[in-house]
């Protein structure tokens, strides 16, 4: 900005701050040490009058940088909303007076704490700029939907109804996916008693009627490049030609394949033609319905009189041979399929052998309806299916009667409930050769991303494409690309439709945010973006490798190329950069580094240690705020700085802190590992890894390893967080003050 920087600090006296602290002294610190141009105190800064005072200064005094020294940055965000200036918050309410006792002996250290926070906010503000938004924003408002099954069609229709144009790519020659092969589907409305029509043809008609949905059949995605708002997608059609489309956001609804039943030879697959999977029965039922005939067994075409459904076939397998998970829909599907027989002829024996019957949603009513129709439900575990001529014998362990040798003979048809295997493309986490060739089958990439980190979406667990089932559904680790339906987790049609709608809404948000140059979830609306001082870059590639969202590519000279639109603004690249050339306008190595240096570190004889606390703003910092709200006291020697993610912590902050005489550094981030809670997926894990390497640095400085400690904190750890602080403060007292003071 060409105009002159003018920094103003506003010190609030409300919420007891004025009674507990010497605010005149805080103002003096801001003026003398913080060297701000303007300082004002106010009795209640967040009221209309206080806010007006700040606004007037911005308008009349040309204030460009505002330091609000009051409550936590998470409080009163609506009052202190000045988008036209750079804003920093000094936290002397939750950070100071609410965690300190109101006693005479505590007064001095409490005041010192507040003084430090004033110094820190002034230092931070000086290194900050008003974020200007991503200049490389794309403005395409078209949604690409990959996959023309129920999920994909739902997504396309939802986007179209919301006023966005859609490009729908389907690899086969017709829309409908698995659902098009079903005879009927489970009921989706009251009274949940009978199978209902799939509704696929109505959806296909609706898509054909929508003017803004462009459908590519027999087509695949040949390449996807760019970023949200400005994806360039080449679509390869049957003729071999490719068409390029400008896309704003992508919904991947590529669904599933059934688990390979040929692996289930114990259950009679291969030895009898009368053993089929659920898709096989749908085919038989559809053919029978078309010919208006009863369902016939495949071996000799005799009408089926006795059918057994085997649940969890090749699923929920603890031995590791088959799928370890439950596919969720199969109990209801078997109930539906048993009704195909019972509704046609009540004399047909239908037995469902299950270990745990799970009928989510309104499936319970459907289950009851099947029981009324005299479908037999037997709790047991099928051990073997023997083929004898045109019938089978199903041997099972009856779990209620504990009969190992239970069996059902003369079974005409055995239906195996095999599970859903996600169709998620290449597993980019496997080495290249393995990823391409999985168990003899060539795995074909779906999105063909031209991203440095790989062609497809990263997988979470068991091949499903997701980044966190619970915390951020639909969010993948590629910004602007959302997964829905059974490719995300196993599910049935009702759930897939709900899923597709959710993912579409997310995709629309991504399109809108991208057009405004803003970040998507979880820092939705953030205008800052990473800037790199490329002349300082050493091409070490750490940022390109470690970015959890694949936002950074490499150019021919192996310099990083930032795709701001793909960036989630976590700062993991900034934490990774060994030469510190990556920064955000309002969050950088300097904004935190200068805060660390601004703290007044007393000499070693004062018996006042200083502990730096770098707290993740997503979980740890809110937990600190809530602890303060509950007035849980913690050490006066801690200076807390919120960070966007522990992944953004650059080790220079830790070494700087220790060099300038801090006695310890605490890092609080989210849980990492398989069931991680990190909002940026890999940030806390990377931070943990980086900190495990800091021992060498500590040794060089002649310091104990305990001087740096990393903690996993959840947002609910309201009592634990102050306890951790106090325990750490006690430990620092035990090992003694740092010898680095005063250098």
């Amino acid at each position: 900005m060409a105009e002159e920087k003018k920094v103003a600090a506003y010190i609030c006296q409300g919420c007891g701050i004025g009674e507990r602290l010497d605010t005149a002294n805080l103002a003096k610190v801001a003026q003398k040490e913080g060297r701000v141009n303007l300082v004002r105190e106010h009795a209640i800064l967040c009221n209309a009058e206080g806010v007006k005072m700040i606004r007037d200064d911005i308008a009349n005094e040309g204030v460009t940088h505002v330091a609000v020294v009051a409550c936590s940055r998470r409080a009163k965000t609506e009052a202190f909303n000045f988008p036209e200036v750079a804003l920093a918050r000094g936290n002397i309410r939750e950070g100071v007076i609410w965690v300190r006792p109101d006693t005479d002996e505590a007064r001095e250290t409490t005041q010192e704490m507040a003084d430090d926070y004033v110094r820190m906010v002034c230092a931070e503000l000086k290194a900050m700029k008003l974020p200007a938004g991503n200049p490389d924003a794309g403005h395409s408002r078209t949604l690409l939907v990959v996959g023309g099954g129920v999920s994909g069609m739902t997504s396309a229709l939802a986007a179209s109804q919301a006023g966005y144009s859609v490009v729908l790519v389907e690899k086969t020659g017709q829309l409908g996916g698995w659902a098009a092969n079903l005879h009927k589907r489970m009921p989706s409305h009251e009274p949940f008693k009978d199978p209902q029509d799939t509704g696929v043809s109505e959806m296909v008609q609706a898509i054909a009627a929508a003017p803004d949905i462009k459908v590519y059949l027999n087509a695949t995605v040949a390449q996807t490049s760019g970023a949200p708002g400005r994806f360039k997608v080449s679509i390869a059609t049957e003729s071999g030609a490719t068409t390029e489309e400008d896309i704003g956001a992508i919904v991947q609804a590529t669904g599933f394949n059934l688990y390979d039943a040929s692996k289930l030879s114990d259950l009679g697959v291969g030895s009898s033609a009368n053993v089929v999977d659920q898709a096989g029965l749908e085919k038989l039922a559809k053919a029978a319905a078309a010919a208006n005939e009863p369902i016939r067994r495949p071996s000799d075409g005799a009408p089926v009189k006795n059918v057994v459904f085997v649940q969890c076939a090749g699923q929920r397998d603890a031995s590791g041979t088959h799928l370890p998970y439950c596919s969720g829909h199969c109990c209801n599907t078997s109930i539906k399929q048993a009704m195909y027989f019972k509704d046609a002829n009540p004399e047909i024996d239908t037995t469902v052998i299950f270990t745990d019957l799970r009928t989510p949603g309104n499936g319970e009513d459907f289950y009851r309806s099947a029981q009324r129709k005299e479908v037999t439900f037997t709790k047991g575990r099928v051990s073997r299916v023997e083929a004898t001529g045109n019938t089978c014998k199903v041997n099972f362990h009856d779990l209620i009667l504990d009969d190992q040798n239970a069996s059902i003979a003369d079974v005409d048809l055995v239906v195996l409930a095999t599970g859903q295997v996600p169709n998620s493309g290449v597993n980019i986490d496997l080495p290249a050769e393995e990823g391409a060739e999985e168990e003899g089958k060539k795995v074909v990439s779906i999105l063909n991303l031209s991203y440095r980190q790989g062609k497809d979406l990263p997988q979470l667990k068991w091949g499903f494409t997701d980044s966190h089932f619970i915390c951020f559904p639909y969010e993948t680790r590629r910004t602007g690309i959302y997964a829905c339906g059974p490719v995300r987790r196993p599910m049935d049609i009702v759930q897939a439709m709900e899923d597709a709608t959710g993912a579409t809404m997310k995709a629309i948000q991504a399109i809108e945010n991208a057009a405004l140059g803003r970040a998507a979830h979880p820092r939705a609306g953030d205008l800052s973006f990473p800037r790199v001082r490329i002349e300082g870059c050493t091409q070490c590639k750490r940022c390109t490798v470690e970015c959890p969202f694949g936002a950074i590519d490499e150019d021919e000279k192996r310099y990083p190329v930032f795709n701001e639109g793909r960036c989630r603004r976590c700062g993991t690249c900034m934490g990774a950069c060994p030469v510190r050339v990556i920064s955000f306008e309002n969050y950088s190595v300097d904004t935190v580094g200068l805060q660390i240096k601004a703290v007044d570190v007393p000499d070693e004889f004062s018996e006042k240690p200083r502990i730096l606390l770098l707290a993740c703003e997503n979980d740890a910092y809110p937990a600190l705020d809530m602890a303060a709200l509950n007035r849980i006291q913690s050490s006066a020697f801690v200076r807390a700085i919120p960070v966007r993610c522990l992944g953004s912590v650059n080790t220079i902050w830790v070494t700087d802190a220790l060099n300038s005489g801090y006695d310890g550094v605490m890092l609080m981030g989210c849980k990492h590992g398989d069931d991680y809670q990190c909002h940026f997926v890999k940030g806390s894990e990377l931070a943990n890894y980086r900190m495990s390497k800091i021992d060498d640095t500590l040794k060089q400085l002649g310091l104990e390893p305990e001087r740096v400690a990393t903690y996993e904190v959840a947002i609910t750890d309201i009592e634990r967080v102050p306890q951790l602080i106090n325990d750490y403060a006690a430990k620092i007292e035990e090992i003694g003050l740092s010898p680095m003071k005063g250098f």
Partner: protein
Amino acid sequence: MSDLNAQAVAKYRTNFLKEVEERVEEGEWVKMCMQCGVCSGSCPLGPFWAHPPQEIFMMIRAGRRDEVLTSDSMWMCTSCYNCIVRCPRKLPITHIMHGLANYAHRLGLAPKNQPTRVFATMFWNNLIKTGRVNELKLSLGLYFKDGFKQGIQNALNMQKTGLGLMKAKRLNPFELFSGHGCKDRKGIAAMLKKAREIEASRKHFAN
């Protein structure tokens, strides 16, 4: 094998569930059991049964006809109604147990000396004679069910109670000889006959 039993076997063959549905009191509920086991867990006598209700229902579905009908499990039910109260599927489990016991008795498959069965039979026979239970005859019958010697022993053991009841005019020794019944014995007999006919037609006993 009783005629009724032979006829049932011929009619239903392996489909015992259907037999239960058609012939056992409240039997049409058996298919609605979802095998949660709450009935078995709630039964105060559960640990003493060979087969708690959950298993009985499973055995019916698995077609284990003889095992179910010769079992003494359902005779153990004391009608506390815990299972009915707790069944999430609202099955009238107590009634089904009594229905099964009654059906097994009908077919002559119920265990011979099962005490509940013996007492229930005595009670019923006593009752339908006059339309009114003769308590003296019923209790004496019970004393002597295991033989004459044991009967004398039982009577002597209960002597004090018996004399006490007589003193309080709650027991009349002359009831032993004639006893008094209902006014319209023939009417009661006719009523019972009609009830049996209705039951037989409803439960398909005839065909």
